[in-house]
């Protein structure tokens, strides 16, 4: 099925209805397995038990950037291909991205307190992720203040693409500047540098959170389509009355 077939909202809603139960089951299984693996994983020789915060922190941090990536592709869909569901996808990804970014920031500072001795430092990685969080909130504010959804969708698309400049800055901030945040140890040239016993729980948790994102995103898109339909129906009813 091509992407253009999903341009029909009814077909999209029907597909989501078929896929969603399976996705929910897969997410629950992945989380159950991932949490068990995380619980059984050995303590790090330096970080002790606090290394387990990483199993939540790292997937959230990845998804905080992934969500903006999804929104950027959706923004291209809105501006270039005029795909009718692209702005729905972008609108529904923004609150999810904001939530994942907030979780990454909170778990990061909880880890930072025992390890670095402080909840927060103004280094490049932390600052750029905080900027990402503020930009998510600004985008949500934009969606909320404008009633004309088409107009808001196109404006938000332009702003999303401008904000995408921040993504490479976040990814490479640990390489470009001398930061307190440690450099990449999984997604790097020459393979991961962390031990297998910690890498497997991390990979499973990353998969679980990615499934959670997809599940919530599809459900939110379906809700948004329904909300727009209800609004249209109410407008038609008001016209008739």
């Amino acid at each position, binding site marked *: 099925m091509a992407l253009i077939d999903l341009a029909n909202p009814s077909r999209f809603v029907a597909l989501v209805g078929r896929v969603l139960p399976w996705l929910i089951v897969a997410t629950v299984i992945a989380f159950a397995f991932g949490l068990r693996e995380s619980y059984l994983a050995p303590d790090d020789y330096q970080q002790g038990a606090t290394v387990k915060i990483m199993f939540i922190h790292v997937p959230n941090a990845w998804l905080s950037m992934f969500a903006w990536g999804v929104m950027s592709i959706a923004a291209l869909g809105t*501006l270039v291909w005029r795909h009718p569901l692209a702005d729905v996808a972008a609108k529904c990804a923004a609150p999810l991205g904001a939530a994942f970014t907030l979780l990454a920031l909170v778990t990061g500072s909880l880890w930072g307190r025992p390890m670095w001795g402080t909840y927060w430092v103004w280094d490049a990685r932390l*600052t750029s992720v905080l*900027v990402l969080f*503020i*930009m998510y909130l*600004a985008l949500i*504010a*934009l969606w909320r*203040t*404008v009633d004309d959804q088409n*107009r*808001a969708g*196109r*404006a938000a698309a*332009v*702003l999303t*693409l*401008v*904000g995408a*400049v921040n993504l490479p*800055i976040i990814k490479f901030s640990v390489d470009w500047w001398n930061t307190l945040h440690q450099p990449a140890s999984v997604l790097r040239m020459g393979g991961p540098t962390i031990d297998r016993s910690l890498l497997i729980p991390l990979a499973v948790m990353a998969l679980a959170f990615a499934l959670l994102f997809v599940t919530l995103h599809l459900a939110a898109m379906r809700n948004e389509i329904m909300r727009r339909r209800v609004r249209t129906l109410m407008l038609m009813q008001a016209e008739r009355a």
Partner: protein
Amino acid sequence: MTALSALFARDARVAIRIGGGAMMGVLFFLAVVTLVPFAIGPDLALLRRIGPAILWLGALLSSLLALDRLFANDHEDGSLDLILMARPPLELIVITKALAHWVTTGLPLVVAAPILGLFLNLDPAALSATVLTLLVGTPALTFIGVIGAALATALRRGGLLLPVLVLPLTIPVLIFGVAATNAAAVGPMPFETPFTILCALTLMSGVIGPFAAAATLRYGME
């Protein structure tokens, strides 16, 4: 080319004659800088240390003030529709309008900065570094600001939305502007490193800003 230079002259003339955009920005800048000693106490040593940061922060906030008038005035009197239909590419028109806006609102801030720096007890080295970084950095603020101005006009929503959208994008400019000034005043980093990044930010926003603003106006006005 004549159309663009005519547009530049018109925008500059309008900004100087009515609304008092330039003087209003400088006045706000003065007010912000005056507030700081009241908030932290008249400790001259402390003011000298944080002075460059205060000047940068004041200039950043002042540059936001006049932004929402950039396209809104033209939209209200209908000249924006004519500008959108004009022969020169919209991106060049946006650059011209942004330059005119910077000359009438950004440049006065740079000129006012040395006088306000004296209030903050800055020494000549820090003062000249602040003025130089502001001269290079405020165009970046304007070029990023045109995106916000175009969004506010296309969405028919001004007010608080514009600063909320623009401020996160200006953070890198603020970081490297203040870093370069501090490097010149106290070291130990060489001045050139953050300063060249600031120049790069200005050039980059000079490319991204007009394109994004032009796209917003095109999609928003149809």
